[in-house]
């Protein structure tokens, strides 16, 4: 029963994602259809046209296994072997430094905004 429910709900979410892709293509919007899909499901839930139970089980499963869906793309770096051999260390440094910069500044900015926010 759980498996059937998951398959049906994931199928539904996939359908919405594909529909989003189609719409962004037709209207020549320069962002991925999945963003439209998020908005669409959110509005359907907010308007109570669908209930949370219709999508929740499948959605939770997809989110719990999110990392799996990145793995084949990560394996794809193998095609840039030469580029990575020559520039790999630079990529690593740049990404690591930039990620740490982003995390520290976002964290401090958020903490600061939360402190002022409390005074509202």
């Amino acid at each position, binding site marked *: 029963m759980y498996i059937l429910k998951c398959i049906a709900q994931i199928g539904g979410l996939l359908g919405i994602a594909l529909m989003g892709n189609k719409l962004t293509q037709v209207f020549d919007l*320069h962002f991925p259809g999945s963003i439209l899909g998020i908005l669409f499901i959110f509005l359907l*839930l907010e308007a109570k046209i669908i209930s949370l139970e219709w999508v929740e089980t499948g959605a939770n499963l997809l989110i719990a296994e999110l990392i799996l869906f990145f793995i084949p793309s990560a394996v794809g770096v193998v095609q840039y072997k030469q580029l990575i051999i020559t520039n790999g260390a630079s990529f690593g440094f740049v990404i690591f430094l930039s990620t740490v910069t982003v995390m520290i500044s976002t964290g401090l900015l958020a*903490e600061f*905004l*939360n402190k002022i926010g409390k005074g509202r």
Partner: protein
Amino acid sequence: MLAGFSFIITILSYVGAKLLYRKKQSVFLSPLVICPFVLISLLLSFHVSLETYSAGTQWITDMLQPAIVAFAVPLYKYRALLKKYALEIALGVFGGSIIAIVSSVMYGKLFHLTPQLLDSLAPRSITTPIAMNISQTIGGLPAMTASFVIVTGIAGIVAGPFILKWLPIHHQVSKGMLLGMGAHGAGTAQAYEIGSIEGAIASLTMIVAGIITIMVAPILVPHLH
């Protein structure tokens, strides 16, 4: 035959890594680190081409799209929380997105990377499908961007716990924003390990960062060259 085998091995390596990670929570056992490592080693040692591997695993990648749509569920469940912190999230994520783009390009210039690689690096702090899309728009290499996004995820889940430990960041919202902004989906998964509020904020941050970067990167990046 080999394509089907690629699919099975990918799933098996993921399940195995997940079980290991549950036993011992070391970053190096995170499926995002260990699976690509194991799979690339297998491809190289058995001389399997990337085309063959991709043919068998394409639909795993395709599931990323419904998985992104699935984020509507936590967004809806935590909508009260999101409304409460709407301003903090909007401003914080806007700032974070700008810093992510500018610092990626600037550090990249410091290391003398080519303009095409700088363009590929610029959207690295957001979730893969959106990042690849932007990379294409601004003239980068989408496949390279995908790998930069993955490395960002790894860097983020390695650095995140230390930064949270050493910086005076106590609010659940700040923790979620830090992880979602710094390490997109990987950071969001880590935020859910801390708590469901942190996770919900991280997933919202990831989505908002994607939308902001779509709008800002094409305007900002050409000025940084």
